[in-house]
């Protein structure tokens, strides 16, 4: 027998009906002209007024659990899932909008696009540096505008995202190098940008088409936009946050959704991602404690990039070891916090030896990983900087995946940053790495 219970359902304003009990709006009540915070719709004027001021509302309903569980599941998946469900009955291909191209899973193997780098890492780095700096300015500008109540134009970020995706498609490693340069005082902007770059790189790895990569990258860039509503003394606090401060911090997901909806320019995917990127597969995430099937695919992608960049921003480790620590966490929390298959794909995408890792070869030479080989992640391109007896040598890059080296030379172990006087940061300073790699591209 069906069990009756009170449930909450998000309803787009164009689907509102008389008698529905509205309990929440997609924005604060005070921002609207409704005097009561919650009411039963009694006439069409109220529906019209809601439609003028909101995109969706939350209604409360009493209904049978089995009949509504599927509906609620889809509702909780967010705007995108509802859009997809709405599209399902339509078979008219000519009317298919761009939204129907959105993914709910990685592309099927036969539909995966296999990207190859169009230019070398050294060649791309110059452009990538300009792209990175411009994008950081754009993100800072966006966050400041929101924080100070000025009009925020999310569309301005589109150009920055386009440049980032263009760079990632030309070369998968150049921008990734730049994500390793962290400045503590610019964490929020750099983190948003890094998540954008990492998620674009991951989407490319998964074989999504370019439009999907752009959409995922944009969601990455905007995922933490709600932090612009978190007080600066909490956001920039040195030391531990109190329980109350943590709860305020956690509100950035809801702030982000509300903010993007109120601006009204953002892609629905970005709205969903801002709201759900801290949900966990086991239902212990926030803000809504969604179950695995309720979490949008895109949010699962961004959650991985978010975790990776947050952990690698730690000051506890050098860059390379931080990468391994982050991948360890993703690997161990797969299926509980992160999507099982996406987590494995993400680790494959990042690779055991990411750009910037300091490694010792089985020959005893020491080098720094320049870039990964798409088809041979354990055999990246390495810049040799120390001889077998650990003396400085003229830098020479070798491709461990080439037939010349494949059988004979391999990475014996990863070394802590600074080993034998080799610091990845020295090579990350743009002049040095561009000079070395540019000459050898």
């Amino acid at each position, binding site marked *: 027998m069906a069990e009756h219970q009170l449930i909450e359902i998000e309803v787009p304003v164009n689907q509102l009906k008389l008698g529905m009990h509205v309990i929440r709006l997609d924005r604060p009540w005070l921002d609207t002209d409704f005097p009561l915070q919650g009411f039963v719709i009694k006439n069409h004027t109220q529906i019209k007024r809601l439609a003028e001021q909101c995109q969706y509302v939350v209604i409360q309903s009493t209904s049978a659990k089995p009949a509504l569980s599927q509906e609620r599941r889809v509702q909780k998946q967010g705007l995108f899932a509802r859009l997809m469900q709405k599209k399902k009955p339509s078979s008219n291909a000519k009317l298919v909008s761009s939204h129907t191209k959105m993914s709910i899973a990685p592309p099927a193997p036969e539909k995966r696009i296999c990207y190859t780098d169009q230019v070398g890492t050294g060649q791309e780095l110059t452009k990538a540096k300009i792209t990175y700096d411009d994008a950081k300015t754009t993100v800072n500008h966006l966050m400041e505008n929101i924080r100070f109540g000025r009009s925020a134009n999310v569309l301005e970020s589109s150009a920055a995202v386009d440049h980032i995706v263009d760079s990632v498609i030309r070369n998968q490693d150049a921008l990734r190098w730049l994500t390793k340069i962290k400045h503590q005082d610019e964490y929020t902007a750099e983190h948003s940008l890094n998540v954008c770059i990492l998620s674009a790189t991951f989407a490319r790895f998964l074989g999504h088409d370019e439009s999907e990569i752009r959409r995922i990258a944009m969601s990455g860039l905007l995922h933490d936009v709600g932090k612009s509503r978190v007080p600066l003394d909490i956001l920039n606090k040195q030391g531990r946050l109190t329980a109350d401060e943590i709860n305020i911090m956690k509100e950035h997901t809801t702030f982000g959704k509300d903010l993007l909806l109120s601006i009204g320019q953002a892609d629905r995917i970005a709205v969903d991602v801002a709201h759900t990127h801290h949900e966990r597969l086991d239902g212990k995430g926030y803000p809504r404690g969604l179950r695995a099937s309720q979490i949008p695919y895109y949010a699962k992608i961004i959650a991985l990039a978010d975790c990776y960049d947050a952990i690698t921003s730690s000051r506890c480790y050098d860059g390379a070891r931080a990468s391994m620590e982050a991948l360890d966490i993703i690997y161990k929390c797969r299926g509980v916090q992160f999507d099982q298959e996406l987590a494995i794909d993400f680790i494959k995408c990042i690779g*055991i030896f990411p750009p910037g890792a300091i490694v010792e070869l089985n020959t005893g030479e020491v080098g720094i990983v320049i870039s990964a080989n798409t088809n041979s992640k354990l055999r990246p391109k390495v810049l040799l900087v120390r001889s077998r007896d650990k003396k400085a040598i003229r830098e020479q890059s070798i491709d461990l995946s080439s037939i010349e080296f494949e059988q004979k030379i391999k990475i014996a172990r990863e070394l802590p940053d600074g080993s034998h006087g080799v610091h990845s940061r020295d090579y990350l300073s743009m002049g040095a790495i561009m000079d070395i790699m540019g000459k050898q591209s």
Partner: protein
Amino acid sequence: MTYASTQDKRQTKRFLCDQYFIQCTLKTRAGNLAMTAIDFSKEGMGLFSSDMLPESEQVSLYLSYQNPRLQLKFNALPCVLVYYNITEVGSQCGLRFSLGKISQTEQQALAAIELVLAELDDPEDRYHLFGDD
């Protein structure tokens, strides 16, 4: 939001934990926190939780390792919180076992776990994902 304690000075290698770390609970003065075992050596281990790590340097660990070959339980293993890294995605921390305060039997048990994990370790392919590479 990311902030961390003092520098991690770890020199010894930690091995990736396998699926047999069944229970891993950190006990502090502020309460107990269920953690995920991340990496391990006989001297210490790395843990992660999506919850906030309580503020406390002196902690103890409840650990259950249930490998078909090796079943071990540690109750209130005294540890020192060597470092922590708290981010909005979760709390990461490193423990050093207080070897001076634990029995010889427990030390041997910790070493036995390390031995099992070392056998599984592949420095080139840490997650065994690139076998066909």
